[in-house]
Every structure is written in structure tokens, then in C-alpha cells.
């Protein structure tokens, strides 16, 4: 047990066949007390959640709810080895996300016809996809924008690597080919299994991220419209999002979506609230840019999963609508600047500076922590964090009200991941090498989400270009939601093999090279 960063042998925390680790980490008195106090807060959030009978009922009704028992463990996986500012940054983010998800669950079950059945509340709910920017809800503060897929599949897999397997199997038993992306496949499986809360005045689906998401939505909308009687608007975001000649189409889709929501909820779009949200979006962009600027130096501060998970949530799911995230942005920036001034580092040794590209393995989100602790590879930034940097109009003027439709369209088109996987090869292929240079990276860790066709379709050209530029390109294959195809150890082995055979290096913490975490949450 050690206070110093990197003294512990983290591999010894794992127990074969167990879902949890054998003990918590000792980080010195101050950091351990801080970490423990945050653990208590999380337990408090869970306890509060379970005080409501409808939530307990939901625990028994919805199969995926059992995964939420693993919340404290998920946080522990992401804080491994962290001290001081880095530990606090992680908790600020994760605790806020947990609180946000707990509220989301509470609201879903409040309106759910099978549990809370609060019909008046349900009339104020607009269902949205998990894979969808929520920009179109920025001017509807009187409505609740809720995603059913976020808690049932997206967060569930973060909590428990095996969470989606049942739903993937359900979809395949129903006749879906096994080679599609398991994310929309699992979401479709939840719908086929009739295992999603039923509520809402209407729903807005979106074609983001990809062909799979678009088609998976067809399965979900069928149940929503034909069985549950919930009208659905399909929001089409153009694929070639960098082209000028698609923006009018995109903006009109936003206008149509807003009109649909107004029609089905009776709510009226609120410009004042919209521009408040726009200010927060801009502030989040500014903060993210500052963090990325720091990551271009020798002292990166907000990086790895601290950057990735938070950006996904704040940029896409929140989209300026919740003030608490602005507060978190401010705190995170303050901590990052403090550590940057003191030239602090998050791990014992930094050996390689890496850009993480492609779509990360969802069942192994803490892989980036492992990468740093085991091999000293610093994940400076990741593809899903390289989102829009454009400042959107934030003053309420007649011109800006018109511009706002284009801004919302721009944000929707530039949803995380799809802003890179779609829109032509430049955004996926060419810009990677520009970032590699900007961040002074010597390595690219390229997640190969094997059933992501948009990504796979550039495989050979990634290799060709990396070879031309002399950059170490390490492929890490995975199947996003399904660890039965490539396990967490299978993911690690791809790095281990490269580092040993090509780089001829020894790990910083050899105990992490092979971990018995097949059964682990």
C-alpha cells in the first residue's frame, strides 16, 4: 500500500472469478479520505434512489437495472492510480454523471406506465436517442428530454461489461445478422424484449451515429408508434456535414423537429433559455480547448478517460442544458491549471504520447487508465473528444435566432464519433495525422471496432499513411458491447504484444499485463 503514484502493483487488486477487487486503494491519508468521502456520496445517491418504491419496482421489472449495483466499482476502475488533482477531476466528472443518470432513471420510472405511471409528467417527456445530440431540446426547459437507451444499454455496459449480451442475443434470435454493430443491436434487443420504460408525449430519433443506428431506430419506433402510441419524429442529419450545400437541409430538419415537439407537447420554444444553453455550450467548448492545449505540452492534465467519458456526456447528452456541468467545467479547468502550473503528472512514468482514434471499446472504458499505468502510454486525446470547436451564436437577436437553427443543425451533425466516422475521409483519415503532429504524438492507438463499417473501410489507408509518416500505429480490435468476441484481456494483449515485440519494452507495472477480470464488472 503506497501513497506515491505508481508504487502499487495494481494487478494484485484483481481476484480471479470475482466481480469486485480485493480491496480499495490506499492513496495517502488526504486522498484516501477524499476518495472515501466521494464513495459515500455515491452510496448516498444510490440509497436516495432506492427510497422511491417505483424505483425498487423498476429494479425488478427491468433486467438491465441490476447493473446499477456496480456503480461504485465503475468509479473505482477509473480512479485507479490517481492522486491529487487527477483524482478530484475524475470524481467531479463521474459523480456528476452518476447524479445525472440517477435523475434520468428517476424521471424515466416516474413517467413509466409500468412503474410510476405519472401521466401528467409523462406528457412533458420527449424521448431521444442515446446516439443523438440534444441540441433540439435546448429551448424547451419546460420539457424533460429523456433517453431510454442511455441507462438500458450505454451506461449499463460501462458498469458491467456483460450487460448487453442478453439483448444482443435477443436481437439475433429475432433474425438480425450477427455482423452489425452491437450497440444499436442491443438497443433493438431491448425493444424486442419489451424491456424499456414506456412514457412520453413523443420521441425524436436521429440517424446519428451510423447506418446501424438509423436502422435500429426503425425497430424501436415500430414499438413506440404501433404499440405504445407514442409519435416519433425522425431527424435526419446530413452525412456530409462539412459541405455547405447540406446545411439548409439540416437546419430545416431542426425547424421541423421543433415544430413536431411543440405540436405533441403543447410547449413553446423558449429563445431566452436557448441562448443561455448556447452560452454554456460555448463555455464547455472553450474549456475543452484549453484542456487540449495543455495536452499538447509535456504536462497534459485532462486526458484519458477523464476527457473521453466527460466529453461524451457533456457535449452530446447535456448540450448546455444543465447548469451543473458548467460549474464542473469551471472546477475542472481550475484543477487542471493548478496542476499544469506545478508541472504535475498523473503517473510515475510517461513513455509515449498517443492519440486514441476510432471507436473505443465500451465494455472496457477504463482501458485508457490501464494504458497509462501499465505501459506509460499517455492518451492525449481520443477521437470522440475531437468534436466541434465552432462558437455558436449566444446573443438573442433576430439574426441569431435564424442562425440558431444552423447552429443546432451543426451540433446535431457533429455528434461525437459520427463527426469523424461520416462526412468523407478527410475528417477520419487526414485530420488524424494533423492531430498527431499538433499533439506531438509518437503513437496512434487505433481502436478497430470490428463491426463499424465506416471505420473498417479506412483500415488499409490508415496503415499506409502511418507507414509513410513513420508513426507507430497499434490496432486494438474489439466488438464494442460484446466482450465474448474479444475479451478485455484480448484487448490488452494487442497492446502487450506490440509493446514487447515491436517496441521491445518492458511494462512499468508488469502485474497489469495479464488480469483475471473476465468475470469482473
Amino acid at each position, binding site marked *: 500500500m503506497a501513497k506515491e503514484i505508481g508504487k502499487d502493483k495494481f494487478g494484485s487488486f484483481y481476484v480471479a472469478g470475482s466481480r469486485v477487487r480485493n480491496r480499495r486503494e490506499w492513496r495517502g491519508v488526504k486522498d484516501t479520505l477524499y476518495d472515501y468521502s466521494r464513495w459515500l456520496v455515491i452510496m448516498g445517491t444510490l440509497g436516495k434512489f432506492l427510497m422511491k418504491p417505483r424505483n425498487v419496482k423498476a429494479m425488478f421489472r427491468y433486467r438491465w437495472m441490476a447493473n446499477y449495483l456496480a456503480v461504485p466499482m465503475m468509479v473505482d476502475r477509473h480512479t485507479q492510480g490517481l492522486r491529487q488533482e487527477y483524482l478530484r477531476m475524475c470524481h467531479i466528472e463521474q459523480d456528476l454523471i452518476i447524479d445525472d443518470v440517477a435523475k434520468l432513471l428517476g424521471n424515466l420510472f416516474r413517467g413509466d406506465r409500468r412503474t410510476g405511471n405519472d401521466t401528467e409528467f409523462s406528457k412533458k417527456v420527449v424521448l431521444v436517442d442515446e446516439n443523438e445530440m440534444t441540441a433540439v431540446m435546448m429551448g424547451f426547459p419546460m420539457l424533460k428530454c429523456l433517453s431510454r437507451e442511455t441507462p438500458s444499454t450505454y451506461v449499463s455496459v460501462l458498469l458491467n461489461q456483460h450487460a448487453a449480451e442478453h439483448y444482443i442475443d435477443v436481437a439475433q434470435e429475432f433474425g438480425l445478422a450477427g455482423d452489425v454493430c452491437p450497440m444499436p443491436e442491443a438497443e433493438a434487443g431491448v425493444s424486442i424484449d419489451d424491456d424499456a420504460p414506456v412514457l412520453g408525449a413523443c420521441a425524436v430519433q436521429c440517424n446519428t451515429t451510423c447506418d446501424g443506428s438509423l*436502422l435500429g431506430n*426503425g425497430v424501436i419506433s415500430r414499438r413506440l408508434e404501433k404499440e405504445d402510441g407514442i409519435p416519433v419524429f425522425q431527424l*435526419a442529419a446530413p452525412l*456530409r456535414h462539412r459541405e455547405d450545400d447540406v446545411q439548409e437541409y439540416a437546419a*430545416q430538419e431542426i425547424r421541423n423537429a421543433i415544430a413536431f415537439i411543440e405540436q405533441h407537447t403543447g410547449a413553446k420554444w423558449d429563445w431566452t433559455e436557448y441562448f443561455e444553453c448556447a452560452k454554456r455550450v460555448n463555455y464547455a467548448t472553450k474549456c475543452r480547448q484549453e484542456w487540449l492545449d495543455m495536452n499538447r505540452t509535456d504536462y497534459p492534465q485532462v486526458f484519458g478517460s477523464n476527457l473521453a467519458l466527460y466529453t461524451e456526456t457533456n457535449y452530446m447528452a447535456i448540450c448546455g442544458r444543465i447548469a451543473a456541468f458548467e460549474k464542473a467545467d469551471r472546477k475542472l479547468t481550475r484543477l487542471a491549471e493548478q496542476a499544469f502550473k506545478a508541472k504535475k503528472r498523473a503517473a510515475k512514468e510517461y513513455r509515449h504520447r498517443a492519440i486514441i482514434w476510432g471507436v473505443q471499446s465500451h465494455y472496457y472504458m477504463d482501458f485508457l487508465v490501464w494504458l497509462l499505468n501499465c505501459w506509460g502510454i499517455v492518451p492525449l486525446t481520443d477521437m470522440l473528444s475531437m468534436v466541434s470547436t465552432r462558437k455558436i451564436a449566444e446573443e438573442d437577436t433576430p439574426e441569431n435566432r435564424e442562425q440558431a437553427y444552423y447552429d443546432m443543425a451543426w451540433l446535431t451533425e457533429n455528434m461525437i464519433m459520427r463527426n469523424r466516422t461520416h462526412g468523407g475521409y478527410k475528417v477520419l483519415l487526414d485530420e488524424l495525422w494533423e492531430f498527431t503532429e499538433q499533439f506531438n504524438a509518437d503513437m496512434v492507438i487505433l481502436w478497430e471496432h470490428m463491426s463499424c*463499417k465506416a471505420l*473498417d473501410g479506412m483500415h488499409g*489507408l490508415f496503415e499506409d499513411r502511418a507507414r509513410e509518416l513513420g508513426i507507430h500505429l497499434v490496432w486494438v480490435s474489439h466488438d464494442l458491447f460484446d466482450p465474448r468476441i474479444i475479451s478485455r484481456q484480448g484487448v490488452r494483449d494487442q497492446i502487450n504484444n506490440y509493446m514487447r515485440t515491436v517496441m521491445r519494452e518492458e511494462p512499468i507495472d508488469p502485474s497489469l499485463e495479464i488480469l483475471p477480470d473476465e468475470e469482473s464488472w
Partner: protein
Amino acid sequence: MKDLKHLIFFEDLLLEANNKLVQQAQSDGRKCIAYVCENTPEPLLNLEGTFSVRLRAPRTGSIDVATYYLTSFLCEFSRALLERAIEGGYNFADCVITPDGCSMMNRCVENMELLSAVSKDKKDFFYEYMEIPMKADDNGLNLYVLQCKNHILKPLAEKFGIDTSDAAIRKAVAKYNRIAELIRAIGDYRKGPNPTITGYEFAVLTLATYVAPKDLILDRLEETLEELKTREPDAKNPFRARVVVVGSEVDDTEFIKLVEESGAFVCADRYCYGSLPGRDPIVLTDDEDALTQICRTYMNRGQCPRYMNTEKMDARRTYVDSLAKEYGADGIIYEQMKFCDPWAYEKMLGSHILREEFGYPVLAVDRPYNIAGSGQMRTRVQAFVESIEIKKIQGGAQNG
């Protein structure tokens, strides 16, 4: 039945992408517009001075190099096209125009571009990528029109000096309609109880209209239609069931042959490269520009699963039902190219809906690009035919 007089001629056209009629048209000074997706409005590619060729890769062998570039997870169609491009098989093309119909076709063409795999020695050669609507509505139509202007008409005019006026487009539609009407009329001979054309023969004729300059096959199609008027069917119908084939890209006529050899007559073809609705005539009026009307027709009739609004999704299934009724089908075969995301979902939902809500026997299969040698597929179709026969004997769907 006696062989169709021009069948071998049409079959011969399908053996090479750069077939003899393509060569003939180019030697006459016409520009070859290559494209890869049914959502590209064909009449716009067949203006005076141009002709279209929808790319395919007949007689595909190894696709190892394309698999390196695209991985084994992209559909074999996209890989076969890229492989053929790398081999130099499309160097006859003067440009490639493609919509972002699906990720795989988009990546396939992008790889062609980045690898300079097609016609790199032609100085005016260009690639154009189009955004196309995902819903059939006014907004989608506006987009479609704008994209066709910017990514088809404008480059054709600027690069090749093609007349893209409304009058020129109307002329192209008239020529397109002549072919479409012929194919429709020929296809109608599939409707009878003992049809005078097989699904395979019809697939060959239809496919030829996609891959050869249309004006150069017009006379033979007309002759074929005349021939069908007096063609005597076999005394005993060799088929035991009639099926509609529904699904993703099929440019392998051997697949249709395999289905028919297994006892199922393909009475209607609802797949990419098929005639339904791909060979429906385009009706133009004088009160609106031709381009808008063409785009509206393509958008409204499109059966591609990328159309995601509920009305379109429902319409895809009712369209199959209407075809089954019109062509007297006993069952439906939903097929998808292996690794095709859009059709993976559409096949799953469509097969359930057509079976459970419309009451048809449905076979759902996935298939590679080249199918002829597949014993597995043959067995599945044979079993499907038997199940239809048993249902007929037992008195229909009510008995399971």
C-alpha cells in the same frame, strides 16, 4: 421453352464491366458516367453525350487486396468493386458519381479515389459524392435537387461541356422511359400461371439496362418483347412455387438461376439492380422543371432501407405485399448481402412483418456476392419450396 433469340447477347454483356457496347459508345465520343447506387437518378447520367454504367464486378475471384483496405467486415460487393478498380477494371470510366447511400459504398469509392485506382491517366476524370435524403418529404426533395445540380449536372457541364438544360433532361427521361416501358412490358410476362419468361432471363435483360448504353440495346429489347408475344411455354410448368425476391444488391444473375433451379419461379424482383421499382417510368409534367420531378420520383419510389421515416418504412412492406399480389407470389425471399447493415435490419423486420401481419411464407437469407456454387443456399430454397407446397396441401397459412 425455346431460347430467347438475344439472351446470349445480353448474357455476354454482363461478363465484363467494360463490355463491347460501353466500348462502342466511348468510341463514338460519349462520356461514361460510372455510379454505384440506385439512389443516383439515372436519366441525369444519360444526357446527350453521356451514358451511365452502374458498376459491378462480374466473375469476381480473389478480393484479398480490397479486404486489406476495407477489412473482411465490409460487404463483398464493396470489396469486389474496389478489387476490380485496383485491378484496373474500371479505367474506361470518365468519372464516378456516388451518393453516401451506405457507409460501405462510400468507403469503397473513397478508397478508389485515394488509391487513384480508376482512370488516373484521364485528365478530366473526377469523383463526386452526393448527400441524398433520408426521408421522403419537401425538405428531402430540396436537398436532392440541389445535390443533383451541384454534384451531377454542374460537373458534367463544366468538365465535359454537356448540355444540362431542362430540355436536355426531358429528352433523357424520354429515352429512359422507353427502356423502362419495355422492361415493364417484358416483366409482365412473369404474371401468368405458366409464364413465358423465366426470372433468370428477365434478370439478365434488366441487368443489361443498368450496365450498357441504353440506346444500344433498345432494338434487341424491342425484338425480345415481340418474341415473347408468341413464345410458347413448356407444357408443364417446371416450377413448384412463385416467389418475390426482396432485398439488397443483386447483380449476380446466377443467384436468380439458383433459386429457379431449386423450384421457385422468381416472379418479381424487388432488389437493387431489379426492375421494381428501378424500371418504373418517370412521368413528367410541363408545370415543373424536370429535375425536381425526377428527384421526387426517385425519392418517393425508393425502397432503400436508408429511408427512415415511418411512412417510408411501412411503405416498404406494403410495396412487397402489393408486388406479391400483383405477380401472384406464393412466398417471399428476403435476401441481404452479408455484412450489409441496412438490409440486415430491413430483412429482420420485413420478414417478420410479411410473415406475421401479411401471412406470407418468408425465407430470410444472407448471401455472399457470388452465390452460384452455394449448396447451402440451394438447400434452403429447396426446403422453402417444400414448405410452401406442404402449406398448399394442408390448406394454407391457417394450418401453420
